[in-house]
């Protein structure tokens, strides 16, 4: 099986060449790695490569095909690009020109909504305030825009990356 994988914005082609017990032979863009890999805990891999011991922790991300991966000092965002993912990504690109959503990267509670559908806002205007863990964050628009839709109301509990306000 060969797959395209996107790591921190860079795309690589990965293929499993062979497997013997825990020993995996994997090629990344043609470079071959012989790695002893075992899942020791849920989402935690112990890997031995050239006798160096690596602990790699995977957390499944926003979609089942995205991961946040932590190694010793670094953290990477990884997306698996199979056929479906590529199709969805292309479709997303088509729509991107029309609409944009304001969202908060963290879960929280909507404290205040400063706009309503149809409002025209200027670059730098705050449109919504979200609170999480005793800290309030203001979300602003980067350029002059029109509010297309407000998807939440004050007091709502929201997820991270959930679209809150659509702008045109």
């Amino acid at each position, binding site marked *: *099986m060969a*797959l395209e*994988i996107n*790591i921190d914005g860079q795309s*690589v082609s*990965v293929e*499993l060449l062979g497997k013997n017990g825990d020993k*995996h032979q*994997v090629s*990344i863009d043609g*470079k071959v*790695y012989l*790695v002893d*890999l075992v*899942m020791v*805990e*849920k*989402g*935690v*891999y112990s*890997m031995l*490569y050239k006798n*160096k011991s*690596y*602990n*790699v*922790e*995977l*957390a499944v991300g926003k979609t089942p*095909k995205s*991961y*946040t*991966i*932590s*190694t*010793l*000092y*670094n953290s*990477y965002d*990884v997306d*698996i690009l199979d056929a479906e993912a590529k199709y969805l990504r292309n479709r997303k690109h088509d729509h991107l020109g029309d609409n944009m959503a304001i969202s908060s*990267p*963290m*879960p*929280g*509670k909507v404290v205040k909504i400063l706009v309503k559908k149809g409002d025209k806002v200027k670059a730098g205007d705050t449109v919504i305030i979200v*609170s*999480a*863990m*005793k*800290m309030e*964050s203001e979300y602003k628009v980067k350029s002059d825009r029109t509010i297309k839709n407000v998807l939440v109301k004050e007091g709502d*509990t929201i997820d*991270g990356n959930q679209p809150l306000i659509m702008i045109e």
Partner: protein
Amino acid sequence: MIKKILVANRGEIAVRIMRTCREMGIHSVAVFSEADRRSMHVRYADEAYFIGPSPSNESYLVIEKIISAAKKAKADAIHPGYGFLSENAEFSDRCKKEGIIFIGPSAESIASMGDKITARRTIIKAGVPVVPGTTDPITNDKEAVKIIKSIGLPVMIKASAGGGGKGMRLVKNETEIVPSIRAAKSEAMAAFGNDAVYIEKYIESPHHIEFQILADKHGNVIHLFERECSVQRRHQKVIEETPSPLMTPEIRKEMGDHAVAVARAAKYDGAGTIEFIVDDRLNYFFLEMNTRLQVEHPITERVVGIDLVREQINIANGLKLTYEQEGLSQNGHAIECRIYAEDPDNNFMPSPGRIQHITEPLGFGVRHDGYVYEGFEIPIYYDPLISKLIVWGKTRPEAIARMKRALHSYKITGVKTSIKFLEKIMNAPDFVEGNYNTHFIEKNKSFLEDKETCQGDCKAMAIIAAFIDYHNRIAQTQQKVAQVKSGSEWKSKNRKKNLLRM
């Protein structure tokens, strides 16, 4: 004697208090909001009472609900922890009226120390140095300008009822005076419902050093030495250590005596903290008194060897202190790092969420006070503190090396944490040399934000792990689907692989 304590708090501090209860043979009672049903303090306690919706002003901050739970549980005493109702004079008073022991000072002590202006007056009377400034709230802009000129710029405008950096303004130029006072007042009103502000001389290279005190109900007061708390971000402590690298034995003794004098002046009993601001030349000034247990109390416990919660309970029981000042000393060096659920790569944005995996650091000289566990969802409603990592070393360099080792093996996935940022601080030359003040993080911004890069093949390993994980997940799912479709899962004779038969 106290037989049952209700802990009116949550998170790591509630669990920490209950641990000492258990060591003393005291039953512990938890209270919990909707968001906290799964919290560790509910699981650790002997009993648990539900007190309402998740926002703290509908649960942990509602005096009536806490008192009602304490009565239902027939608790003899309430420990407020820190935050929430811990410095609320009304609550202390209410406990007294209900015949429940409040493990903390009297309403009068809290009130006299809680209002910064009243506290200043008391402290000046006790002969303890305070930062030059006003003892009365500012009522008149012109008068304020006059006072500020006599103290000399720069000055700080501070909210009387304040804390946490709110209602605070630094004034460097004369023209900023009036707008700054107005801004501080309006912020103070919004935050504390009280717009009283006062003026203080601004100390240019300030160190934040505090002294732990213990006072019993029989007039005995001791101090347990200092904590250096100058590593701060947005006026919030990030790392604390003891002894302070700045301190000399002479100044330590002098400040300790002054800390004891403050406690006496406030007619204080219980555990408390006297905060001082100290400049580079070791001039020190009383800043404020915290009439409760501090977040950073474990570093004192470690070098002095005294369990502060046990002492609080003993004092509340009316017992005399069993330690005398002369018998106390600091043994070795302790450092605490606060682990927050926040994203250091993204302006320290809070990062609530579900803990997917956690590896806690262990071993010689490491203490870890936390409350989260795998699968626990950190609520969005409360403080982002996940845990506190406390290390001890015979010397300061040994303690730093140990903290680096502990942070290195401390892994949390599922939420972003400040662990890597704390590791950077441990490596910052200014910190290693003990040469820092409250401007440390700002001054070392570029060093602290610089990302460590992996020597070796971390990136390739990350790619391979993701690839194999995805590969195996697909293979498993396909197998399961095939089994179910063919009905083989239900016919299988292999009992081991077939975990559940109906």
